[in-house]
């Protein structure tokens, strides 16, 4: 049980996929324009990462070394397509707002990275812990980034159609730059610098 909690916690701070490992930045930059998108992306991402880590950990002793990457990719692509179809069928609104970023989970290097670096070498319970930790770490990171971008970029914060709060003055004349790709780079760069300055760095 000790290794379970250790593998879970590591993904959240010490080996946070976004802020420390700097993996999967492309979807993080692209989707972090609203809290809705961040929540939806995290759910889809967590499902794919958890399933792929479980499957790959289960078959890890049989996977021939030479074809391991194609095998991982086929498994991940299958899972992503399942998520994509399910979202289109059951939550079309979310599927529409996440758009092409669902299919792009296939090439999210966090998932392939965890398959290659962790699940293919560790047992199933550790792999589950790793997936949950990495998923939560990714989720917290993308939520933090989209919180800042939505707040500054639109002057108001809303979640699934419910308005949380509005900054008077800013909502009439929002800093639209934060909704643009360059705003994403500003926010993520500033956060990275902040975390380094606070002394959070890779302990591995």
């Amino acid at each position, binding site marked *: 049980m000790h290794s379970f909690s250790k593998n879970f916690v590591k993904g959240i701070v010490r080996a946070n996929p976004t802020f420390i490992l700097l993996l999967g930045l492309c979807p993080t930059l692209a989707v972090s324009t609203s809290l809705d998108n961040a929540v939806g992306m995290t759910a889809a991402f967590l499902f794919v990462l958890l399933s792929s880590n479980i499957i790959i950990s289960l078959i890890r002793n049989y*996977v021939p070394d030479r074809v391991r990457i194609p095998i991982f990719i086929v498994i991940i692509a299958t899972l992503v*397509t*399942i998520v994509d179809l399910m979202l289109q*069928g059951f939550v079309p609104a979310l599927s529409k707002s996440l758009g092409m970023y669902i299919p792009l989970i296939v090439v999210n290097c966090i998932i392939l990275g965890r398959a290659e670096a962790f699940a293919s070498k560790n047992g199933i319970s550790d792999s589950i812990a790793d997936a949950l930790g990495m998923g939560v770490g990714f989720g917290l990171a993308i939520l933090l980034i989209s919180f800042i971008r939505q707040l500054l970029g639109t002057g108001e914060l809303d979640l699934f159609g419910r308005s949380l709060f509005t900054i008077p003055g800013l909502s009439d004349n929002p800093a639209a730059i934060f909704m643009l790709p360059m705003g994403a780079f500003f926010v993520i760069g500033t956060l990275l610098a902040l975390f380094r300055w606070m002394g959070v760095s890779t302990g591995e």
Partner: protein
Amino acid sequence: MRNKKSDFFPVVFLTLIVIISVVALTLTDGITKDKIALAKKEAIAETLATLFPEMNDFTIDEESGLYTPLADGEKLGHAFMATATGYGGAIDILIGLKPDATLRGIKIISQQETPGLGAKIVEGSFLAQFKGLSVDEVDLSADGGKVDAITGATISSAAVVKGVKEEILKKLETLNTEGGRD
């Protein structure tokens, strides 16, 4: 034993994985196919209803892409999609025409314009300007038409206007030739 097989085993294993994937995807497709088709039809009905609120049914002519919204069997006009080329990519626009060929209204279905600038084309204040216009009046004010461009988003505004105008002209041609045959 394993060593002797080692040239062959990876091929078998990869094939096996692919077969399992195909089965899993076929099953998922079977579960979701009807739901997705239904969701798409509902989405169309929902967007048509924003232009034709009194609509309670609609027909689709797949070949020409014309939707005919109906209220208790009576035709309310025509609706169809247009694609304009904006600043950030394709802009999909739903156009609603009254039976007299003036505009009932337009609605942006999807766009990738700059948030905060070009993306304002989805706002009611811009779209409302199209209501009641005849096709000749669909132009930016600067070009003698009746649509005011959004400040800071001239390219996106012009793209919408151009896309709408061209598609209406094209569809009116089809409608007129079809009308002649009736």
